[in-house]
């Protein structure tokens, strides 16, 4: 992490203790948010967040920063709507500017079958408390004048669903703000401390082995992104998770002009404009699982071609940088949060493609579970036990998962 940020934010890096009440593996959004809520809501401050690299080095710093709630199943919509609401008040709560900006999101449909899917999404979203409306092509054009309604002559826009509550925020700042919030309340954040194994007493996980020595813990939470299967294997837990890379890129900065976030489930791409003016463009995850963070030119070519069908002005821009993140995708495309069947070991995982928007709700709910020992209502459907109980929650409610 750069010095400028550390000075500005007043981040403190303490010496590690030998033991903590709670050790959270993974210093990304979810890990730090859980630590913050444990300290602020439940008074549990003897907590360490152990990060292999620097905070936000993983997917918290690699996502496309979209915050929204228009998912495909009731449990998910309620959960993400809660997160969208928490994000709105987050800058005040953590007294840190996160460049949060509510701009709305439209999902374009090019075929009658996609229109049907969007209509169903609207009805379900409204029923579960996430405002979403159907809009006509001309209304879409009003919201986003740059849109080519003929879709480059190949993908004419039939209509769209519009989710006014959608927002973007600066992802690094969310991570730093939670880190600072947690540190001020006494949480230890240990950077450059990769976890190499888990300690066990009897059947119970009792701490972590790190490259800098062992740390014992009353309870261990894995908030690892990407490499979670390896971490869970240390505890003897198998997860229904595949790890896929997902690539994205940004263009050079441009005058603020793109109103809403434009997303397209048929062309598999989404565009938003960051506060700095860059167009942030993402796509679906790669078909074969891997842990490779390599960017590919074939992705860049195909994604750029698709996105310029919708927004032709993008073809005038230059590509500034490209990157990849590794997403842990669960078998039913919903996150997995809660107990694992091994005492003293909890997970929050399966966040591939929807982790950033869930940071406040995921952290708050996991903190409540850890502090009270009871699974909060919002979290209940997302337990690992749902697979054995035949209650999998198929939700392909994101462009990343088609």
């Amino acid at each position, binding site marked *: 992490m750069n010095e400028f940020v550390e000075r500005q934010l007043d981040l403190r890096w303490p010496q590690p203790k030998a033991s903590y009440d709670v050790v959270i593996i993974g210093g990304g959004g979810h890990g730090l948010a859980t630590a913050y809520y444990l300290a602020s809501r439940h008074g549990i401050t003897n907590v360490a967040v152990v990060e292999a690299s620097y905070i936000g080095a993983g997917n918290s710093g690699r996502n496309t920063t979209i915050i929204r709630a228009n998912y495909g199943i009731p449990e998910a919509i309620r959960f993400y709507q809660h997160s969208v609401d928490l994000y709105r008040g987050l800058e005040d709560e953590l007294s840190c500017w996160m460049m949060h900006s509510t701009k709305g999101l439209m999902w374009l449909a090019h075929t009658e079958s996609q229109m049907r899917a969007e209509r169903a999404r609207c009805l379900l979203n409204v029923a579960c408390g996430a405002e979403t409306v159907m809009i006509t092509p001309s209304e879409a054009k009003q919201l986003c004048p740059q849109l080519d309604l003929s879709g480059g002559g190949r993908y004419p826009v039939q209509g769209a669903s519009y989710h006014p509550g959608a927002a973007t925020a600066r992802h690094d700042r969310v991570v730093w703000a939670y880190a600072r919030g947690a540190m001020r309340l006494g949480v230890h954040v240990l950077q450059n401390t990769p976890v190499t194994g888990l300690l066990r007493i009897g059947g119970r996980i009792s701490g972590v082995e790190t490259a800098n020595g062992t740390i014992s813990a009353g309870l261990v939470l894995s908030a690892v992104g990407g490499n979670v*299967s390896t971490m869970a294997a240390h505890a003897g837990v*198998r997860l229904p998770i595949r790890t896929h890379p997902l690539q994205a890129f940004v263009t050079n900065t441009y005058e603020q002009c793109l109103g809403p976030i434009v997303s397209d489930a048929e062309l598999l791409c989404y565009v938003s404009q960051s506060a700095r003016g860059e167009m942030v463009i993402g796509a679906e995850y790669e*078909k*074969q699982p*891997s842990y490779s963070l*390599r960017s590919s030119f074939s992705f860049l070519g195909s994604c750029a071609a698709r996105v310029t069908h919708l927004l032709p002005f993008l073809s005038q821009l230059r590509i500034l940088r490209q990157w990849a993140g590794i997403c842990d995708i669960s078998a039913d495309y919903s996150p997995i949060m809660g107990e694992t069947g091994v005492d003293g070991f909890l997970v929050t995982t399966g966040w591939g493609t929807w982790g950033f928007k869930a940071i406040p709700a995921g952290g708050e709910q996991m903190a409540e579970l850890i502090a009270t020992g009871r699974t909060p209502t919002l979290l209940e459907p997302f337990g690992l036990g749902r697979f054995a109980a035949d209650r999998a929650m198929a939700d392909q409610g994101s462009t990343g998962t088609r």
Partner: protein
Amino acid sequence: MLWITCPICGRRPVEEFAFGGEARSIPERITDPNERDVDYAWMLDNLDGLSTERWFHQAGCRRWLTLRRNTTIDAVVDETP
């Protein structure tokens, strides 16, 4: 780009293939039939390293093949494991 050598068609680009999942066997340590079913239906090794996998040559001969891939760097290491 990833290239895969199909035993029938030879060296072909990955775009012609569909990933068919891990070549799996049910762990022997699980003796409870119910638990074994859950494990077989849902759980994955998701290895960060050498993984043995099934691939389908969708846009070619339409046969299945087994290969070993290093998932850390996404490279095929052994086409006839």
